[in-house]
């Protein structure tokens, strides 16, 4: 009888944990991290390079995301897993350890689409959409950004007007919309009598068009679209009744940015793990390059920044679980973690030399992805100004 040894893949590699942060996590949180990592290792990593090259999202895995409970994982009820915020964050970290595009899918579905329905929707809207969205059968997209209104979303020109016979008519254009061409339902933010409101627009409504944006060199394993709304008519039940004004979309962004804080650690960890293994293996001038001071300086910088980000973000998660987190605190972590992850990715690319630009290794893909993450969901500079305003009381962007 042949003894079959379990493969490394089956068990899953270990995570970067220099300070034993594992001991600060609950049993449930560790189980979430380990199971999601195994899923990413088995199901996402083998094919993600090909998807990135071809510019496609792995749609075949959406059902499995739903089965695992990754969609809207920190929401309660309506078929959602009801995880704590740290467990949810660890799931996002592991997804982005695979690819930022995959984590983006889960962030948009859960934090930008399911969250506003959960927080501001009517009971009827919640029952109609949330269970199917949690299963991955109904896909959502979030239409806030416009071609001319990125960092300044409150300037949006998409408008809604009330129809005399009931319902609303929407007109406008949204751009840089993740999942736009995959979505069955779009959350469109539009001005109704000068005030921002959210509308649930089925994407098969006449006058609604999604155009896929293909010519991008980042986040290629993710669908990015432009949404065009020309006299799109929806019923009264399309309006999200629970919120008006910029608080609506901004509260969604806080949820999504929180997930990005964790995700960036995942991408950075993948780059560090790859660079460390490569440096120990790659021999130049008769010894491994890991033995040279310049390379060690890079590896230690990476580990140091990852370790700091882990503790910063764990504390942020505990604040969120306690209901005490302020949006500016999320901004500080998003700003820090993504900037550091991007620098780590560039350093890892450097350590890998020419191999760093090959699809064979994940670092080039992470590096290109993180350029997007650096800019979306509030650019690095905007987050600087949010924290700046928070500590000085003076808004620099108005």
């Amino acid at each position, binding site marked *: *009888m042949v*003894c*079959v*040894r*379990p*493969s*490394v*893949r*089956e*068990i*899953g*590699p*270990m995570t970067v944990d220099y300070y034993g942060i594992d001991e600060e996590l609950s*049993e*449930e949180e*560790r*189980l*979430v991290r*380990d*199971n999601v990592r*195994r*899923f990413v290792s*088995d199901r996402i990593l083998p094919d993600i390079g090909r998807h990135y090259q071809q510019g496609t999202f792995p749609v075949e895995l959406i059902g499995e995301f739903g*089965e*695992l*409970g*990754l969609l809207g*994982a920190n929401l309660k009820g309506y078929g959602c*897993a*009801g*995880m704590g915020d740290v*467990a949810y964050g660890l*799931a996002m970290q592991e997804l982005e350890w695979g690819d930022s595009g995959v984590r983006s899918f889960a962030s948009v579905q859960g934090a930008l689409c399911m969250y506003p329905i959960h927080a501001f929707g009517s009971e009827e809207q919640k029952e109609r959409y949330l269970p199917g969205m949690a299963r991955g059968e109904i896909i959502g997209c979030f239409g806030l950004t416009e071609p001319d209104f990125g960092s300044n979303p409150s300037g949006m020109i998409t408008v809604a007007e009330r129809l005399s016979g009931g319902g609303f008519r929407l007109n406008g254009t949204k751009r840089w919309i993740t999942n736009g061409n995959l979505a069955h339902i779009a959350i469109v933010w539009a001005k109704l009598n000068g005030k921002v409101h959210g509308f649930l627009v089925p994407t098969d409504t006449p006058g609604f068009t999604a155009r896929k944006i293909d010519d991008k060199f980042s986040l290629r394993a993710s669908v990015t679209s432009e949404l065009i709304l020309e006299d799109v008519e929806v019923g009264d039940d399309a309006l999200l009744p629970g919120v008006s004004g910029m608080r609506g979309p901004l509260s969604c962004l806080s949820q999504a940015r929180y997930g990005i804080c964790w995700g960036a650690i995942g991408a950075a960890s993948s780059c560090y793990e790859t660079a460390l293994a490569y440096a120990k293996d790659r021999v130049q001038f008769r010894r491994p390059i890991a033995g040279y001071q310049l390379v060690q300086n890079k590896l230690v910088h990476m580990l140091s920044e990852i370790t700091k980000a882990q503790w910063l973000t764990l504390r942020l998660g505990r604040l969120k679980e306690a209901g005490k987190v302020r949006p500016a605190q999320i901004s500080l972590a998003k700003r820090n973690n993504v900037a550091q992850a991007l620098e780590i990715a560039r350093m890892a690319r450097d350590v890998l030399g020419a191999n760093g630009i090959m699809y064979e290794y994940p670092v080039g893909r992470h590096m290109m992805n993180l350029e997007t993450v650096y800019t979306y969901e509030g650019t690095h500079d905007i987050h600087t100004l949010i924290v700046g305003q928070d500590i000085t009381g003076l808004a620099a962007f108005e």
Partner: protein
Amino acid sequence: MKILVPVKRVADPDNANKVKVSDDGTKVTSDGLEWKMNPFDEWSLEAALRLTEDVSKKGMKGDDGKPLDRIGEVVLVSIGPKDAVQTIRQGLAMGAERGILVEAEDSSLDSHVVAQVLAAVAQKENPDIVFLGKQSADGDSNVAGTKLAEMLGWPLVNYATSIRTEPGSDTLTVTRALDGGVQTIEVKMPCVLTSTDRILHPESVKNGVTPEDHKYPESEGGRYASLKGIMAAKKKPLEETTLEALGVTPKRTEEYVKFALPPAREGKATVVESVDELVEKLHSEAKVL
């Protein structure tokens, strides 16, 4: 159908370079090790979950809130220190109904004592099947299942590659892979089983309830614990007991005399001038020719 699945925690093989031996060489020190469910146990757990579910009712719940896809009971048992609970939780999160932790120091156990404890738990629980991993990935002894069957006086089928049964039947049809062929065995329950990785094949387990044409996904291990499963696992019953409470007087049959790590590899390269010199060195120094 009720299935008892023993699950052992083993040191994560990926972390194997952290395994250390105590200075006197009498034991493996566990400081700083990461633990995982023994993969062989995970295969048997996956098969046990397949035997006790109806995938056509997946995700459906009855009026009492209980999942309708579960048509039997899987009980996990682990023997070890308190933090072995995490291994049981992983199994509960995958779908098992409840768990039993028999507290004991790892150093006080050998295969015989493990079989004694499992026999005591089996006599208390009266399962239809005790479904073990064929061996543990650390000790590799490969005897606990066999000893257990002997102690219970139950039939044993080792290295199962497929299992078929029908609702209400007291018989399992189990196949085993032999060199150059397949052996089919009919075994009456209660019985003891162990499995190989072929039990994970998409169509290896048929329980007569899950639709006959259902194919499980290809996998090298058991199913992933879903986030909902992890949440549900927190509320599942987990009983803690001891050898004394089970009435087990441990009778060790083995003493571990010495552990040694493999010798460090010497990375020495010699440049040879000719093929003749190479052959000569392979013969006289490496002694491989």
